[in-house]
């Protein structure tokens, strides 16, 4: 692992993976992965397609099989915990693939985001708050989610993940398939949410874009962490640039 000297590892991480080996059934995807993210940061994970970025997030959230190692949230061992428990602990997640319920309206989708509350009034209040923050969604709240454009759908997925008012969010390629003007919009939102105190772990295909907003970056290749550093360091690192930024 090549770490530049100025970089300091997270000392008191809110989220960390310690020597995690994980995958799906008999397939191992991550080999001995360790990362740590400090509270209030934006951390960005980059790496080639198929390197295991999504699997890393799924391992944290309980969607992949962890063979060894531990995942820690806020000092607590959460290895193998269900998504339900993670949501209750203030962590939410936006998948890389489309994850709306197509035959439900935008509003019903939002309410599903608050499913773990077991309290419809509370979920409705929170949804109303989020429509104030995302007026575009408020305007289309009676529309079926299956009819939304790519940008609207991504916005709904993001807003739905905010229903639990998370302390920490994982976003897997939030800008995937979006037109450039929406991409800037999404990154602007990420910055705003982070300013309000939400810790962010991003996976970004557009590595330069991702690293430019990140306090901390990780480069994953073939299921192993190859480089860590601040976003700027990785952006300027010659090896990272040559191998992963196409420069």
């Amino acid at each position: 692992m090549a770490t530049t000297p100025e970089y300091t590892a997270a000392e008191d991480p809110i989220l960390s993976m310690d020597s995690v080996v994980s995958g799906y059934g008999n397939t191992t995807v991550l080999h001995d992965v360790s990362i740590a993210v400090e509270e209030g940061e934006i951390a960005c994970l980059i790496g080639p397609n198929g390197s295991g970025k999504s699997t890393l997030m799924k391992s944290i959230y309980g969607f992949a099989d962890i063979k060894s190692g531990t995942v820690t949230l806020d000092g607590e061992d959460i290895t193998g915990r269900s998504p339900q428990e993670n949501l209750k602990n203030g962590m939410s997640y936006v998948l890389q693939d489309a994850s709306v319920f197509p035959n439900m309206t935008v509003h019903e989708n939002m309410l599903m985001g608050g499913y773990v509350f077991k309290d419809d009034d509370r979920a409705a209040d929170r949804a109303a708050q989020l429509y104030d923050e995302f007026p575009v969604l408020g305007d289309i709240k009676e529309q079926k989610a299956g009819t939304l454009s790519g940008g609207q759908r991504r916005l709904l997925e993001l807003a739905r993940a905010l229903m639990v008012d998370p302390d920490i969010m994982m976003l897997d390629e939030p800008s995937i398939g979006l037109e450039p003007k929406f991409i800037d919009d999404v990154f602007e939102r990420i910055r705003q949410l982070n300013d309000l105190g939400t810790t962010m772990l991003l996976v970004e295909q557009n590595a330069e874009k991702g690293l430019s907003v990140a306090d901390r970056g990780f480069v994953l290749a073939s299921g192993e962490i190859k480089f860590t550093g601040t976003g700027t360091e990785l952006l300027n690192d010659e090896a990272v640039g040559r191998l992963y930024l196409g420069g």
Partner: protein
Amino acid sequence: MALAQFIVNGLLVGALFAAVAVGFALIWGVVDIINLAHGEMVMLGGYTAYWALALTTGTARGGPLVVLATLPLVVGVLFAVGYLLQRVLVKRVMGTDVFLTLLVTFGASIAIQQLALRAWTANPRSIQVELADPSLVLGGVVVPKMKLVAFLGAFVLTGALWAFLQRSRTGRAIRAVSQNPEAAALVGIDVEHTRATTFGLSSAIAGAVGVFVATILNVQPQMGLIYTLKSFVIVVFGGVGSIPGALLGGLLLGSVEETVAGVISSQWTLAVSFSLLIVLLIVKPNGLFGQEASE
């Protein structure tokens, strides 16, 4: 006048087939499994009521209210059977080859039949409902009272299921799982529990229908197959996963079959219903309500 009688007869039995098919459609739509053991739930429901009466009162007979009082028990028992069927068996073949899933549910249906045969013999059994005046005559059409009760019961069951899916928290989870299982897990739904619950609810309704069948006809261990077959036809007819489609499909199939049986001969019923199905599939490949595939 005779035609009116055939159609009424058809609607009366059609509603029962429809209520069974609704559960079959729900499992197909939500869990993506064609449950070939679905008809056995009708059989088990009928036997549960039969034995509940026989063991508590000494004879499998009673007034209509006594018979209806077995419904909560039957619903509870069959919910558990369906829930466990998914949780213990079907779960293991989820997402594999469709032939494997068919084989497993077919195997379950044979196993349940054989166990029933061992336990209760092949003798048909029925529940005798004591009614002073068993039939109504409305405008020249004879309506057996118990068939009318069964007809209304089938509607109540289907309506209750519909309302449950639309209104309750579990119903929302079921719809979410049917539309996108991964997203359902993402928002904190226990997908396996929800799938098993869907099996449980569908089996409970089939079991409740079994109680009505035991009162107006009889139950015997091999009765399930015809319910599974008809459910299949009705669901393909109405559109996979559609509850209104299954309801309408059941009523239509019932009236067509009774009319064919009455006017021509009962040997023609299957030929006519399958021909109708083929014609419909040519005209409307997704079934009557196919566009609402995941509701």
